[in-house]
């Protein structure tokens, strides 16, 4: 009873039934929903795997019977391994940014937020490079089922990373403007959850799309 009275006196207005912030519950519900979104995209990629009528193909070379033109296997594992590593490191930077914000450490919160954003942008750079070189090698989104499913799946993932980078940059901007402190920890935490989820999706994509043939 005492606790209840205390809770009420303390803050009736921002009372929550679970004691947890709204945004964090919402972001987890959102992540649950996103599982279905990416599961559908990945399922489609896998269902259509090996069903393309014409090349180029992800893992095997292809000769166009009409023109005799040679096409290399499209996927570039070394480059993608590097970009995968970059995204993993961005998750590390993100958790460090969060702890800096919790500590109220304004210097390191800026450094780690900036690093996370920069690593995210680097990942996007890799993806831009990957996409353009694929187009040069003859794979467009319209070329075949592989092109349609591949670009759509990785493109949507890239769009999520882009949104995350924008979010990070906005947060960094706020940090420079007024400094992020412990009271902002929850907002950074929610952003971090989103960011890690996008990373986790990439972990699945890297294996299912790039490594398994």
């Amino acid at each position, binding site marked *: 009873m005492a606790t*209840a009275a205390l809770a009420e006196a*303390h*803050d*009736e*207005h*921002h*009372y*929550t*039934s*679970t004691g*947890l912030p*709204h945004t964090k*519950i*919402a972001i987890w*519900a*959102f992540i*649950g*929903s*996103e599982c*279905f*979104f990416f*599961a*559908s*995209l990945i399922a*489609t990629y896998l*269902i*259509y795997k090996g*069903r*393309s*009528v*014409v090349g180029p193909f992800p893992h095997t070379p292809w000769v166009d019977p009409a023109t005799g033109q040679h096409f290399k296997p499209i996927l570039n594992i070394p480059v993608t391994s590097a970009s995968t590593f970059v995204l993993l490191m961005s998750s590390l930077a993100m958790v460090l940014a969060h702890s800096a914000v919790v500590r109220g450490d304004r210097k390191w919160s800026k450094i780690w937020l900036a690093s996370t954003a920069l690593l995210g942008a680097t990942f996007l750079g890799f993806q831009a490079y990957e996409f353009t070189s694929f187009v040069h090698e003859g794979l467009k*989104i*319209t070329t*075949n*089922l592989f*092109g*349609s*499913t591949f670009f*759509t799946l990785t493109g949507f993932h890239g769009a999520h990373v882009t949104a995350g980078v924008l979010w990070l940059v*906005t947060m960094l901007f706020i940090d420079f403007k007024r400094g992020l402190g412990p*009271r902002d920890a929850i907002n950074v935490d929610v952003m971090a959850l989103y960011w890690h989820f996008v990373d986790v999706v990439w972990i699945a994509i890297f294996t299912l799309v790039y490594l398994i043939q």
Partner: protein
Amino acid sequence: MATTVAAPRAAGPKHKYESGIWSWLATTDHKRIGQLYLYTALAWFLVGGIEAFIIRLQLYGPNGRIVSAETYNQLFTMHGTTMIFMAIMPLSAAFFNFLVPLQIGARDVAFPRLNAFSYWVFLAGSIFMNVSWLFHAAPDGGWFAYAPLNTRVYSPGLNMDFWVIGLQILGLSSLAAGFNFITTIINMRAPGMHFMRMPVFTWATFVTQFLIVLSFPFITVAVTFLLFDRFFGTNFYEIAAGADPLLWQHLFWLFGHPEVYILILPAFGLVSEVLPTFSRKPLFGYPVMVYSLILIAFLGFGVWAHHMFAVGMGPIADSIFGITTMLIAIPTGVKIFNWLGTMWGGSLRFTTPMLFAIGLVSLFTIGGISGVMHSSPPSDLQQTDSYFVVAHFHYVLFGGSMMGLFAGIYYYFPKITGRLMSETLGKWHFWLTFIGMNLTFFPMHFAGLDGMPRRIWQYDANQGWDVDNHISTIGAAILVVATLIFVINLVRSRRSGARAGNDPWGAPTIEWSIPSPPPAYNYATIPTVRSRYPMWDMKAPELTASVPHSPAGEKEVTVKVGGATAGHIETPADTQLNAENAHPSAHELGIVMPTPTIKPLLATLGLCVSFFGLIWHRHVPIIILGGVIFVAALYAWLLTPLEPEH
């Protein structure tokens, strides 16, 4: 975030958002948004009804000539799309909005501005979809728009473009609302409002929101593929490129079957509020009711391919999906028996909401049974794509969802407006609906079993379908009359219905403890809840003896309304009878409410501009302009605090 309660503030000059049209455009009040949903959805219900009636006129006799084949395709596609996405779902959303915060003892939803955004996006999407009529290019591929018929090759016009984009917009609205209500129900329950004390409507809402956020991604992805195919030339549904037409069907029905429960569960919830009140008995088997809701939702993800028995998935898949479909009838049947158990031995009052609730129990049962009939693949092969299926899902959606929603409208109208609806007109409405509904849809069972296919524009005479179709159309005419009576009742009662008071029905849940219509802040003091039926604890404790309570000896709800505690009033609290706005304002009570804002509407307008650009010759600058408006509005919205600084 500041954590102190604001001191009472002097009422300053009225902000322009506090009255007139602006007060609606900038509202973040869940009750106002609920009403916007209600009236918009009812308007679309009338539009969808007119479409249905034209279909019935066309089919009245053999070789009807009222509309062309093209128009007919547009009519049945838009009838289905309208009723599902623009009438039943938003009617449910009207109740989610209006009721959930009231039922859990909260002052608003978790994200009031996101809530406004959901409504505006819904409005934009529904208008967008219907604008297509002006171009004689309404969607014409059926509400499930099978691939590859929905691709550019087979549907070259704007028709399916409108459908693809419109559906995407409507999906966004439902998803945004879904996250909002999940958070609201988890996190904004008043003290003592445990999960197992929540009113069943709130439970139904909770489960429905999970169905929405977990099944809409499938349709989002399926429709995105279609959009890419139609606009950018990808190959997702391009058979020549090796695509499998079943991909669309699987993704669509992975959404489509949970969608059935999205349409029916809120109606189940409403009926579960109405039946105990008018039976003067607690809901029979409350925990079972809750678990069956959860079980239905869970199993609902494992039955989708029963819509696809005819495509030849093979004996294993057919058997599995047949069995899961039969299984899902169990928790559904349990609910029916629980409602019967609630009425059994109760002192029944046959008010209009009660009649509609009983209508749901009886008519949904018929639809449920015909549903179990086509859970068996061999009999499904006889019934699929015939009028039998049309009969089945209209018993579920009209006999079930709409009956439940009408029950909810009659039951909660007094809470929404402060006035009762006319019982005389209400009973006319009910009986005409009940008779018209059965006349319209029951003969379709026979027409279907006699081989009448769905979605045909004309049929030849003397195939044994003539009489069935005559009766169906006569039934539809009766439904038109019934609906007109409902509209008249609604308009008249809103203006001059009898004053309702706080609790006109003697209902058990806490939303009836506050004035009708409720003040902006709902509860002056957040209530503390001690059982499932706080109002009966107070007014008729003998009714709730069997319901678990907190054993503190405090069998009452402590609800303060405008300084006076309503918790101890013995008779139905009619303090507000002749003083609609007698209760003090949020300012006077020092309650901080969200600031009204136009930004969610601006964000929606940005989206509209983008989608307009997409359909208007894929005009890239317009698409980008819309995107910029959207992002700018979003930033402006997210970077302003929800409430006035304090």
